[in-house]
């Protein structure tokens, strides 16, 4: 057990209760542990198992609540009530759905590549869970604080592409292949602006560790890095493949895309992974731009984290509810011609500001915010002018002569198209 792990309250509390009389724990006022001396290795393993169980079950529970909450919010955005029948306020609806999904018949198409077909759901669920291993949920509440935390997140989330491609290829379904091609194009394109958007954050914090990034946020980085937040948020929405970027599923075009042939709990895993991705994206946005668990003192830090997370989720759902889907070429154009330029502007401006104030204090961060906001607004406006489709100036509701000569003279008004008065 090294020192860094003992700084982590999750590890310390579980490990030291189990093996309290070890030298490291004794110095931290823990009474005698449950296990006899010499079994520190067992305590270590048990603590690891406990933490894994805690985090995974916490996330899955969160997903169940999120599915219910999202459906309720959908309902409200659409003037409906949402699910409210099963359990108090419909909270048991997603539980019932989960049970139903599990008992469904597990179908595998005859043309499918069985091994890959079964592997794909695991491939997509694992990275979505892995992201949570580096996210700090509160003061000292995290699984691991990697010094390359942000890089780890970027690396792990890009694995989704592979899973989608595997699922589509192994299904042996043309619609699924079309969806996977879209997915690859989309995810690879948006990786780049997403990675570049956090460069500003890394520069300001001087570290890739999420703990350090939170520590550096005397002012939430959403205020200091509006452009970075804007690009990151949009790119993250695209990475999640949710509306307005849900090209891979595209209910109205591809039916369900790469999910077409999946049934039962395999489909359930894809579904869970989708919502876990939503949860992890909000967690990352909260950590990078909304100062993570920081808040006022009497309220515990975990509460602040969850409150901010819910706020971000609300905005994501609001986006999803409001916007129609973009076309593939527009999505790619938007990534390469729009977001890419915006990140470049952001990096240059931030670099100049960092050169002026190398170790920004809170006051200097406010100064940076004051400079960055006009830059952000002007550049977003400029990009939208460059990329946007100009509207029709004034639709022409004129009752003037038609542009094409209609045979109006040949058909006298008052008679119906040459019909004879029937039945003389």
């Amino acid at each position, binding site marked *: 057990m090294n020192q860094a792990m003992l700084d982590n309250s999750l590890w310390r509390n579980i490990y030291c209760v189990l093996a309290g009389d070890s030298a490291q724990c004794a110095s931290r006022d823990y009474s005698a542990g449950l296990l006899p001396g010499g079994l520190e290795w067992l305590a270590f393993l048990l603590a690891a198992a406990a933490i894994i169980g805690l985090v995974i079950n916490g996330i899955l529970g969160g997903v169940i609540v999120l599915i219910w909450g999202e459906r309720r919010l*959908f309902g409200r*955005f*659409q*003037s*409906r009530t949402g699910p409210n029948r099963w359990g108090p306020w419909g909270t048991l609806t997603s539980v019932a759905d989960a049970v139903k999904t599990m008992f469904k018949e597990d179908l595998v198409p005859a043309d499918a590549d069985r091994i890959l077909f079964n592997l794909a759901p695991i491939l997509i669920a694992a990275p979505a869970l892995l992201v949570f291993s580096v996210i700090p949920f509160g003061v000292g509440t995290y699984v691991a604080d990697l010094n390359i935390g942000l890089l780890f997140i970027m690396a792990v989330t890009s694995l989704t592409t592979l899973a989608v491609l595997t699922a589509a290829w192994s299904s042996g379904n*043309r*619609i699924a*292949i*079309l969806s996977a*091609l*879209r997915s690859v194009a989309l995810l690879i394109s948006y990786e780049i602006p997403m990675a570049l958007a956090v460069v500003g954050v890394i520069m300001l914090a001087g570290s890739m560790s999420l703990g350090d990034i939170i520590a550096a946020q005397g002012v939430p980085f959403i205020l200091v890095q509006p452009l970075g937040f804007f690009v990151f948020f949009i790119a993250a929405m695209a990475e999640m493949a949710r*509306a*307005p970027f*849900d*090209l891979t599923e*595209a*209910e*109205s*075009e591809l*039916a369900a895309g790469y999910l077409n042939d999946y049934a039962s709990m395999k489909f359930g895993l894809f579904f869970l992974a989708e919502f876990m991705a939503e949860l992890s994206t909000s967690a990352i946005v909260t950590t990078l731009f909304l100062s993570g668990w920081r808040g006022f003192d009497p309220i515990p830090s975990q509460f602040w984290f969850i409150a901010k997370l819910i706020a971000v989720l609300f905005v994501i759902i609001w986006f*999803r*509810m*409001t*916007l*129609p*889907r*973009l*076309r*593939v*070429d*527009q999505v790619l154009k938007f990534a390469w011609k729009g977001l890419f330029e915006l990140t470049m502007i952001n990096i240059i401006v931030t670099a100049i500001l960092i050169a002026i104030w190398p170790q920004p204090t809170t006051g200097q961060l406010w100064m940076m915010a004051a400079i960055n906001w006009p830059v952000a607004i002007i550049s977003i406006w400029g990009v*939208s002018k460059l990329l*946007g*489709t100009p*509207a*029709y100036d004034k*639709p*022409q*509701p*004129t*009752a003037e*002569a*038609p*542009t*094409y000569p*209609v045979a*109006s003279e040949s*058909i006298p*008004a*008052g*008679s*119906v*198209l*040459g*019909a*004879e*008065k*029937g*039945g*003389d």
Partner: protein
Amino acid sequence: MAIKTQPVTVNLGPQHPSTHGVFRMRVMFDGEEIVDVEPIFGYLHRGSEKLAEERTYTQIITLTDRMDYVSSMLNNQGYILAVEKLAGIEPSPRGVWLRMIASELQRIASHLVATGFLLQDLGALGTPLIYAMRERENILDLFEMLCGARITNSYLRPGGVFMDAPDEFWPALDRGLDDIVNTIDELETYLSGNEIVFSRTKGTAVLPPELLINASITGPMLRASGVDWDLRHRAPYDYYDKISFERILHTASDNYARYWVRVQEARESVKIIKQCIEQIEPGEVRPSFDEVPRLIRPPAGDAYAAIEGSKGELGFYLVSDGSIAPYRMHVRASSLINLTLLREMLIGGQFGDLFVTFGSVDLNMGEVDR
């Protein structure tokens, strides 16, 4: 560097979430681009025209309800006009006003549904659709007040309507019209200026007016290309010659123009209904049974009557042999004829635009297959 690609044929439908019923397309894609389209339909064929040959003229009204089931009042109106022409029935004025009000309400409902489903095809996850449907529900409530049914109305009878509107209908109609205007305003704020809607629909599936006229396309599709052709204005039926309204035209002839024309026409329909309410006068709603008996026996002959339906010219052609049932009924289904240009609209376009273009035609499979 050109990448060597191979076109792939994909079967879309009949069980596809956005084919507006049971329509099937065999589409050949080169990447995202559409190379070839083969439309296949007939999955909802119920033989309405043949069934009509065994029904009396009044009983056929119930068949017309089920053709275009999102605008059954308009179908009723088209059929009734043909019967009146065939049998030489002089309709009661109050009945005509009532059926004009009913069919204009139905036109609003149909255009709202078309707009909602176009946005659904654009991928808007139901929000605009439900706003449009919410308003359509109010219109259906009005229909329930009028005739006791919401969708398959069968409200019209040869010579008028079967029953006068109840007293509570008129205040409800006034309130409803205000609500409709509010909803259309809301939808326009939400969608007409929406950059995503705009970039998705502008300049896609453009059809020249010459081609539209040659293919005998009618309705909002034609008016979106700038051709001033509205049967309510060109060949007024019922009392449309006593009504003044603006014809909605757009010159772009793309998906956006079709959407825009529909929304503006719904607004105009509200104005038409208001004029109808002003001009309606008391009286009988249908001729007495001495003039128009329950079993109509029109003299041998034929008649064609057409109305401006929500999707285009909706015509009914009836041939009588002097018996109580028509010898032949033919329906000029606007949805079917508007669908004939599907290939021209789709080929060369993107997969993402396929169902948007399809939705912009505003077709109803009940009417296409009959």
